[in-house]
């Protein structure tokens, strides 16, 4: 069976050498690059099956390079190999078209597994990262359940508007400009999908912000 062709892109030569040595018995490393734009310029000529790259690289970071490479070479599989354990960065990497996200410290045990997985059309993320992701999903879900409808400032503005004060008067009372009051009012209406001021006032009553509950 033909060995899969791999490109490595990382500006740390020591590390690229170590990874190259580790992969070569099983795969063919067809090119190594130290910057994002050098990688993007030369990748298509090398006809890779897999590109392994870091998030931080000079001239063009890995996330931008990944998005551009996927446009140029839709079939190529991209794996991030990084010291960056940030969940948002990993999510952004998959959004940009990556199929794998592996931590450098786990490279020896996980990179080959990740390569095998993505060659078969699958996805791979370092297990320690996915634990964090699951935790983050659970927290977000809990937060969504208890998410407040309005911000503290929006509630203050809403209460005063519901009490019948004009936007100008509210601005004076809260020591902000009328434009800011208008901004809060329209942001609330958009957020609550409410189309008229009357509906907004009745919403205020419903949540207990109205003349009856005034100070």
């Amino acid at each position, binding site marked *: 069976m033909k060995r899969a062709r791999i490109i490595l892109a990382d500006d740390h030569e020591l590390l690229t050498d170590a990874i190259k040595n580790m992969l070569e018995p099983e795969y063919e490393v067809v090119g190594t690059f130290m910057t994002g734009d050098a990688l993007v310029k030369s990748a298509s000529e090398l006809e890779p099956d897999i590109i392994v790259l870091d998030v931080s690289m000079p001239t063009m970071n890995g996330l931008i390079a990944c998005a551009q490479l996927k446009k140029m070479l839709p079939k190529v599989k991209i794996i991030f190999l990084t010291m960056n354990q940030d969940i948002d960065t990993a999510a952004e990497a998959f959004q940009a078209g990556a199929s794998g996200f592996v931590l450098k410290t786990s490279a*020896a045990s996980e990179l080959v597994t990740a390569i095998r997985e993505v060659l078969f059309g699958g996805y791979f993320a370092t297990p320690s990262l996915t634990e964090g992701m699951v935790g983050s999903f659970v927290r977000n879900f809990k937060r969504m359940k208890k998410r*407040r409808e309005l911000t503290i400032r929006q509630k203050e503005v809403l209460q005063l508007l519901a009490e019948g004060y004009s936007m100008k008067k509210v601005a004076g009372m809260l020591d902000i400009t009328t434009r800011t009051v208008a901004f809060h009012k329209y942001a609330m209406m958009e957020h609550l999908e409410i189309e008229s001021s009357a509906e907004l006032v009745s919403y205020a009553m419903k949540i207990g912000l109205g003349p009856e509950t005034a100070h």
Partner: protein
Amino acid sequence: MGRVYLGLPKPTDSDARNGVLHSEESLKLLTGRLISAQEEERKRIARELHDDLNQRIAVIAIELEQLASAHPSLRASVKPIQKHIEAIGHDIHVMSHQLHPSKLDHLGLVPSIKSLCRETSGNRGCDIEFFHHGVPTRLPKDVELCMFRVAQEALQNATRHSGASKVDVELCWASGKLKLLVTDNGRGFDVTREKMMKGLGITSMEERLRLIDGALGINSKLSRGTVVEAIAPVSRTSYGN
């Protein structure tokens, strides 16, 4: 002991008032330079930690794993060392991120402030919510870093000193201006007390904003919470610089 004026003419009484104004200006200029120099230095150290130290740590981790694969009898002894190495790598990454948020460069301001809110909320057990409206994906780097630092400082004040249980962080974009609002329901403070203002890192927020032609507003009353408002003008031609 008398004063020594190094190579400068001794000021006369008539120069005194102008001198005070002049030294205030110089002090502001100096603070601005100090902030820029500190950010540069933090960025440099963060880069050293991430680009040098941490990559060497990664190479050691890879070599250890290869050693264990070549000599299966060593696997049990190598495993705990690998765990230590991974933990050091993680700590270095966190330290580097605290010094300079590389996420700002990779993902931009909205995701960075979003995760700042999440981290602060997790660390301090305070309910922090983040709202954003129409903020461009990429903004000038100096504006991004300034607004991030202001958000960091304001959140620190709200969660450490104000006793707030809820904080809202809002980032919005309107007519070429970026606006950050940090509102808390804490105990508030007397904005007329100069000492209080200085103690809360407000000077540093003000100076940071001044460097990008922005402005800071603080609205607070005792037991009525605090609103920190930062505004930064952004010209369309400077995006992503």
